[in-house]
């Protein structure tokens, strides 16, 4: 609808709250982050130090480890969690009896807070009363009787990744919803040709929800780049910084008031996110057109 002259004021007034908050909590913080990353700001004084923060960060083993771990989370999500979500979505797309119940149940971890999920799974992995050790012990793997999954350098990352598979339902729901838009004609034609269910799933449904699958990969990468609660509450980045991730790293810098250094880590994180997004768009775009 074209705007009448006397309504321009109202239009601006309607946009203003969102625009002000967006400026205050998106644009301004990013500029602020960039500016303070070149200083040695400690909450009181700030002096310009050039690229010192960046150089120091990249020379810190624990920081490089945080970046690698974040990438490790992103890659596992893209290569394991999302494809598993696709398989379950394909299976539930048959709409056999009870599919809605399974969909709901699998989605539940997504609506529970990350803090609660982290505490729950920390209990599952607990050495003294944990569910996992109890089960392993009972099926005869008694080596693991008092194994501290999250406290052990060898198993901490694997345990974190293993638990993150419980989020498969989120991606499944997105892809499953997309299958509803596929025309029945395809399946009817395939049936006449004598296609089996597995052929229908992998040659008709899967290619038709490819774009949603790619979207899920992008979402998975973003979520895993900014994840904080699991690592913070389950291992706090330990043992020996083995499970460190970027946001926990920034948090630790913040608590010791090395705000300039923390800001530099934040800038690196945003840059990494942007690079990953561009890279994924490139890869996935060329895929879609081939």
């Amino acid at each position, binding site marked *: *609808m*074209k*705007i009448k002259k006397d309504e321009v004021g109202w*239009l601006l007034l*309607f*946009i203003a*709250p*969102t625009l002000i*908050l*967006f400026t*205050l909590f*998106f644009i301004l913080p990013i500029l*602020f*982050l960039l500016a*303070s990353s070149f200083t040695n700001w400690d909450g009181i004084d700030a002096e310009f130090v050039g690229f010192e923060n960046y150089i120091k960060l990249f020379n810190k083993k624990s920081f490089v480890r945080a970046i690698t771990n974040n990438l490790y989370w992103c890659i596992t999500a893209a290569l394991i969690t999302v494809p598993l979500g696709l398989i*379950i979505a394909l299976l539930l797309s*048959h*709409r056999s009896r009870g599919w809605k119940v*399974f969909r*709901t*149940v*699998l*989605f*539940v971890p*997504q*609506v*529970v*807070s*990350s*803090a*609660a999920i982290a*505490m729950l*799974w*920390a*209990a599952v992995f607990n050495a003294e*009363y*944990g569910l996992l050790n109890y089960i392993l012990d009972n099926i005869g793997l008694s080596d693991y009787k008092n194994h501290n999954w999250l406290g052990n350098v060898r198993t901490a990352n694997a345990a974190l990744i293993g638990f993150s*598979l*419980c989020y498969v339902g*989120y991606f499944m729901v*997105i892809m499953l*919803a997309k299958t509803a838009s596929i025309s029945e004609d395809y399946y009817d034609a395939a049936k006449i040709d004598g296609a089996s*269910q597995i052929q229908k799933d992998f040659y008709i449904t899967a290619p038709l929800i490819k774009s949603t699958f790619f979207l899920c990969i992008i*979402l998975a990468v*973003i979520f895993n780049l*900014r994840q*904080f*609660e699991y690592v913070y*509450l389950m291992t706090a980045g330990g043992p020996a910084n083995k499970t460190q991730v*970027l*946001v926990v790293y*920034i*948090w630790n*810098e*913040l608590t010791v008031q090395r*705000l300039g250094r923390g*800001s530099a880590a*934040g800038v690196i*994180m945003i840059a990494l*996110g942007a690079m990953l997004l561009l890279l994924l768009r490139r890869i996935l775009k060329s895929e879609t057109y081939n």
Partner: protein
Amino acid sequence: MTKDNSLNFYSIFKWVIIISFVVYAVFPFLWLVLASLKTNAELLDNPFKLPKVFQFQNYSNAIQEAGLIQLIINSLVISTCATFLNILFASMCAFAIARHIFWWKNVLFLMITAGILVPLNALIIPYYAIINFLNLYDTRLGLILVYCAVGLPVSTFILTEFFKGIPKEIEEASYLDGCNFVARYFRIMLPLALPGLATAGTFQFILCWNEFIYAMLLTSSTEIRTIQFGISYFTNEFFSDYVGMFAAVVVSILPSITVFILFQERVITGLTAGSVKG
């Protein structure tokens, strides 16, 4: 699709996969509830056995000792206010964008929705500084503002898409009848967009209720603390009272699961319309 009832390999595979993931997703929760009804000794002795007597006092203990009621009230107040403001602001902005023509509207829409892709947790240091600068550290208003702002890109996106889908005729008729801008928003658009508002609102509420890092960053006193940050204290405070911790976790997840069960269709359509979670 026709039903294939024959028991072939693929359908066995299918049920094995589905059931094992259901177990993976739900079993820990069931165990959590079970464990929260035991004594600490029973839990350490055998994490999986049914308790002799269901220890419902774990819940009353957790509620009293950790002040769970206060934490829940704080979370409810903060989440409700933030959701209300978020939906109000986002719907106003979405109305302006979806229903009017002005030269910079695409730029505006693109800019706001690009906010969805920003890894916001990288910004904890500036948020800390800004909230301190506004003198809102350790206040409910500070958290409400942050939660409201953080959810704006997603809500604006969902609502703009929803508004675009509503037929223009009614609005145009009212426009010709002399209905002004504000009246068109309140009298025509909002009532027609109720399902969209419910979708975006449910999302925003779950986001606020579950939020952890800003709650930890921007508050310090117990009177303001939200439940998610509150339960994380259990790991320190009650370091030996595991069952009390489990009871508190169960209490903290009940509201979001309830909201989800009540509004599940909304959550799922919202997810597929926006395909985003804040």
